[in-house]
């Protein structure tokens, strides 16, 4: 019995020690944030006072994404946002207010995301969140944020669950909606490349599966085109000879591939190895839209692959002033990090956020802020080729440019192709 007493008392004293420290930390953080956000924090939707996180000279913005762990590469999104915020702040801020980014490391673990989302919303009292990374983490906090009506701008996942059907507080995704991308690529493959026998290779996760479903559904619109083979793999796979064998056997004229860069490069390598290079290789933007793919797969191997992009590569948009600013600024802030890829999605998301704040004007409440998105109609003053919102369109990004790999470069080969959310049809821009 002596032992039990001992153990219990130890537990207890420990709990006490920890709790005291924890709550001292907690109170300090709340006081800190309330002092920084001043008397305006208690406002809510509908009231004419300013929303939480907004003071006369500052707007607090939150961001959640992994900074360490297996998927830490997406920390580049944060760097993109951070870089743009710095740029805006140095040029006088938005409507006279400085932007302040509060970013936490959720390590891509939904439990942590939920915890930290509460921290951002309730303790730090940020005004909005921008560009949050990942499907599972975003889905885990969805119910909580919808209930709060908390503005989420350009979340970092293209799943339908966040944008289709539209949710009142979710505005856009900084990766084009997966099913839109699938439809645009499919349309291009059939109309422009004359695909008849399509094979699909997909990463077995949210990204791949949603694309697979989309393509199967969309194919009903194209009689005479069939799926001859489906192969799948997981994101961490490195051995693709079995998939390559299956694809070769099915002998498709077009392979549509949906994955992150690693598997895309390895599958193409495996195909190249067994000499199966005839089929058009159409790859999703996540993998093909980054010139790092030439590094990974090799120039000759990747030659001729098609992909779609929402943000042009810096090299082909040299005349675009927004792109010039991005290239100059980001390479100054983060000289050791790659330019293409995640930093661009972060920067682009931040541009949309800032533009929306600008358009909302001085009466910055959540309601007004969310409404301001509906004024985006083919807005082109960002590094995105175009951004559009509407009552029935919370996608934000709906158009892509198809590109092809030639001699180690990703060259645009089409005009922007746009998906119309109202009619659910695909249009080539004239």
């Amino acid at each position, binding site marked *: 019995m002596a032992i039990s007493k001992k153990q219990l008392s130890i537990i207890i004293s420990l709990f006490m020690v920890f709790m005291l420290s924890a709550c001292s930390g907690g109170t300090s953080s709340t006081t800190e944030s309330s002092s920084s956000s001043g008397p305006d924090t208690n406002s809510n939707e509908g009231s004419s006072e300013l929303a939480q996180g907004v003071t006369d000279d500052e707007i607090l913005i939150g961001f959640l994404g992994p900074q*360490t762990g*297996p998927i*830490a*590469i997406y*920390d*580049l999104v944060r760097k993109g946002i951070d870089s743009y915020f710095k740029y805006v702040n140095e040029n006088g801020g938005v409507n006279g207010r400085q932007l302040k980014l509060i970013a936490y490391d959720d390590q891509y673990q939904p439990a942590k995301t939920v915890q930290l989302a509460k921290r951002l919303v309730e303790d730090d009292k940020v005004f909005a969140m921008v560009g949050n990374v990942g499907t599972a983490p975003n889905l885990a906090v969805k119910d909580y944020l919808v209930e709060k009506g908390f503005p989420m701008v350009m979340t970092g996942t293209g799943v339908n669950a966040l944008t289709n059907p539209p949710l009142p507080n979710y505005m856009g995704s900084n990766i084009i909606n997966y099913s839109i991308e699938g439809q645009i690529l499919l349309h291009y493959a059939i109309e422009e490349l004359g695909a008849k026998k399509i094979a699909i290779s997909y990463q*077995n996760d949210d990204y791949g599966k949603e694309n697979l479903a989309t393509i199967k559904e969309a194919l009903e619109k194209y009689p005479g085109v069939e799926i001859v083979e489906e*192969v*799948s*793999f*997981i994101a*961490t*796979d*490195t*051995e693709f*000879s*079995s*998939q390559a*064998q*299956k694809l070769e056997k099915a002998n498709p004229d077009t392979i549509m591939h949906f994955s992150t*860069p*690693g598997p895309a*490069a*390895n599958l193409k390598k495996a195909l190249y*190895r*067994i*000499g199966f290079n005839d089929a058009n290789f159409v790859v999703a933007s996540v993998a093909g839209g980054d010139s*790092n793919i030439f*590094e*990974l797969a*090799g120039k000759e191997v990747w030659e001729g692959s098609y992909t779609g992009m929402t943000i042009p590569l810096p090299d082909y948009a040299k005349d675009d002033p927004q792109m010039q600013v991005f290239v100059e600024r980001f390479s100054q802030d983060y000289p*050791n*990090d*790659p330019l293409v*890829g995640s930093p661009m999605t972060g920067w682009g998301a931040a541009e949309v956020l800032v533009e929306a704040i600008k358009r909302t004007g001085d009466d910055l409440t959540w309601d007004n802020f969310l409404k301001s998105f509906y004024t985006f109609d083919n807005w082109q003053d960002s590094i995105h080729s175009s951004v559009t919102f509407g009552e029935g369109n919370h996608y934000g990004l709906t158009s892509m440019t198809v590109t092809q790999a030639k001699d180690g470069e990703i060259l645009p080969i089409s005009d922007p192709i746009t998906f119309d959310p109202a009619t659910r049809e695909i249009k080539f821009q004239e």
Partner: protein
Amino acid sequence: MQIIVSGLIFGCIYALAALGLVLIFKTTEVANFAHGEMAMLTTFVSYVFLTSYGFPYLVSLVLALLFATIFGLFVYFVFMKRVQSAPHLNQVVLTLGLFMVFNGVAGIIWGYQPSSFPEAFHGDPYEIGGVFISLNEIFVVILTLILMLGFFLLFRFTRLGLAMRAASQDTMASELMGIKVSGVFMGAWAIGTALGGIGGMMTAPVTFLSPNMMSEVLILAFAGAVLGGFISLPGAVFGGLIIGVIENLISYYIAPELKIVFVFLLILIVLYIRPQGIFGGAKIIKKV
């Protein structure tokens, strides 16, 4: 056929990673979970030699292995020596801690963007009887076999090998018999880390170079080593090869996503029938 051959080649990569693991375990009885991350660091170092200094492949390899040797000694002296007689679980958790530190440090220094790593030999694949195989892959297979045989013979027939085996069986008795146990342990850590480094440099062209490149490989290497009995070098290679082939067969005939489930199911069945692993020898119950 191609599937089996590719599986064997990939199995060699698991085997290479497993060799160092088994070598360290066989001698020091420490299951080193940080092995993969140490290999990853070595590979990054060789990459720095290759790109920043522009050394040729072979020179970079040698320099990187030199680094690995020193790194192995460093880990041994700073961390592992102090816990050599601690409970095994402490050692395991310590290596898990090192795993996190090394991974994080590499992430801070080199970032998480994957980059490509050159193969030892370039060249288009040859077609032999409907099977495609490249020069580099042949090299990997031969390298694995040479290393395995070399260390197997070293353990079996040399004085050093005898000392290593003795040290792992009974540290104190070996010490009394005049074996410098700490020297043997130093050697095991140095060589084991260098072996891991070779494994890393063979893995990097396939998985691409990034701080997380070894995690998947190491888990399967660990599984392969255990399948082979965990104290047998040929067993480790054999286990790695089996896993490589099975993985590929499952991913072709059943479902690629479920391969890890089936691989471990297989291991479970094998171990249920033979709890000491395929090459584990007779089961000895100690500590009565």
